[in-house]
């Protein structure tokens, strides 16, 4: 069988997955706090090929020497190995709503091991007490007066408590202190992820840790600075032009793989109709 036949097949699947991911980026070009996905496409483990050959030595009994001679490494295809969110800051957009907050990255320490920069998030809590993290600061008040995200996840303060408010006549300072008139009600809790790539992306712009353990409070980490801006939201960091270009590239790569697949098919056709003719 032709080895490359499955290689191009895997190439088509990988490029298809890439277009799917890019289409989702494009779909979320207007989603506040959205972090564009990036993909890494990786080659399958290479196979080392050698040819089996025999050497006949002209002796009386016809002595045969069997041996392996190396041919080289051959790749057997590609797959989409990772989808990694790009944690770069999106542009700020004004919304005029008091319950909208943009979280602006200040200085964030770089992880020595991986060389990636850390990331900060708002802390959310689900009904069961599990913590989730988001960059989308589009919040609201639920009927009981708790500050929540639109899906009803509670926004937590820096002590890990839910934030109860009288009404949405609030002012949020740059440090994240929520003021109701003259009184400070709570401080918005910010969490710091040293290795943001290790977070799992869920729906609604939320991330969670793989093992379910909570991230550390950003105020407790040395060297983390941030600020907040009320009445603004952090826009999506998708670059529509770049995404469109990437999508076209992926599409053409898909097409190229398809062409090779057809070429293999034609070779097989020849094998059947011409070589195999009786």
């Amino acid at each position, binding site marked *: 069988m032709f080895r490359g036949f499955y290689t191009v097949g895997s190439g088509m699947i990988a490029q298809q997955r890439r*277009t799917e991911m890019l*289409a989702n980026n494009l779909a979320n070009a207007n*989603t506040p706090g959205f972090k564009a996905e990036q993909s890494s496409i990786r080659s399958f483990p290479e196979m080392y090929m050698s040819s089996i050959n025999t050497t006949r030595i002209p002796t009386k009994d016809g002595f045969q020497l069997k041996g392996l001679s190396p041919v080289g490494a051959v790749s057997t295809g590609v797959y989409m190995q990772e989808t990694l969110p790009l944690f770069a800051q999106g542009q700020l957009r004004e919304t005029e709503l008091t319950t909208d907050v943009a979280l602006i990255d200040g200085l964030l320490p770089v992880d020595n091991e991986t060389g990636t920069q850390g990331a900060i998030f708002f802390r959310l809590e689900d009904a069961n007490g599990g913590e989730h993290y988001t960059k989308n600061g589009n919040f609201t008040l639920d*009927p009981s007066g708790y500050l929540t995200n639109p899906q009803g996840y509670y926004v937590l303060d820096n002590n890990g408590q839910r934030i109860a408010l009288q*009404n949405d006549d609030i002012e949020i300072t740059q440090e994240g202190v929520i003021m109701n008139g003259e009184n400070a009600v709570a401080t918005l809790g910010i969490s710091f992820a040293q290795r943001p790539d*290790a977070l799992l992306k869920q729906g609604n712009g939320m991330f969670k840790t793989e093992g379910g353990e909570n991230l550390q409070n950003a105020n407790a980490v040395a060297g983390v600075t941030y600020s907040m801006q009320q009445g603004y939201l952090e826009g999506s960091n998708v670059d529509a032009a770049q995404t469109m270009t990437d999508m076209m590239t992926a599409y053409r790569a898909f097409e190229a793989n398809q062409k090779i697949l057809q070429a293999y098919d034609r070779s097989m056709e020849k094998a059947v109709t011409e070589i195999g003719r009786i």
Partner: protein
Amino acid sequence: MLRTMSTATNTLNQLQQQLDIIGNNLANSATHGYKSSNAKFHELLYQQFNNDKADTAPRQSPLGIRYGSGAVLGQAQMNWKVGSLQTTDRQLDFALTEPKQYFTILMPSDGGEQTVYTRQGNFYISPVANGQGMLVNSEGYPVANSEGLPITFADDVTNFTVDAGGMLALTHANGTVERVELGITVAQRPNLLQRLSGTNFGLPANLADLGVTQQEVMTDLRGATRNQVSLEGGMLEASNVNYEKEMTDLITVQRSYQFNARSVTMADQMLGLINGIR
């Protein structure tokens, strides 16, 4: 089936709805007392694909790849900022200059009476039986006083004046002055209100299920709290729709629509290529 297509169509559908919201805002950019509403996008669910169970290659993210499936509109939020004031010099035009204060209107509903809230303050006199007049809004529904009752008076009023505290003084033909307190309430949680029409808001029908009382959502200003009322006569509050913002949003949404439609085309071409393999 290609996920690209479903991701893009999910989003197209939602973009269409955002266009509807923007269209409604633009249509009401000249409606007195109109509050603009806006909706933000959110990501749809993410799906985990474990496409490389045997993969031992070094990686930064948790195992598998995560795919999004498009964007969805979250909550529609009301912008309760005060619109600009327009002087009309008409005696029965009133404008509330503090945000979140509302006039109360008694609207007949099936099997009773429903209180609706509005900031559209152009009122009129409608003659009722026995030579009496009643203060009504532009739709002909009675305006309530601070007791929640319709305001009726002998229909020979020569002059109407209002003070900043919402006290309406009616000077009759014989020189006697009658004083009526206009019913004003404060919306503590404007986002809990249900928009009945352009400028009319009502309480949600499932208020009891939400575990809140009417007083917690809409606080009537009576007695001592009356001094919070801030009302101007001879003026109307213009719509708070920001024309430029709506237009830019319109352009962004339209372009996003094109981008997503493009994703569908691309997915279609890819399906064509798959069909063309053989």
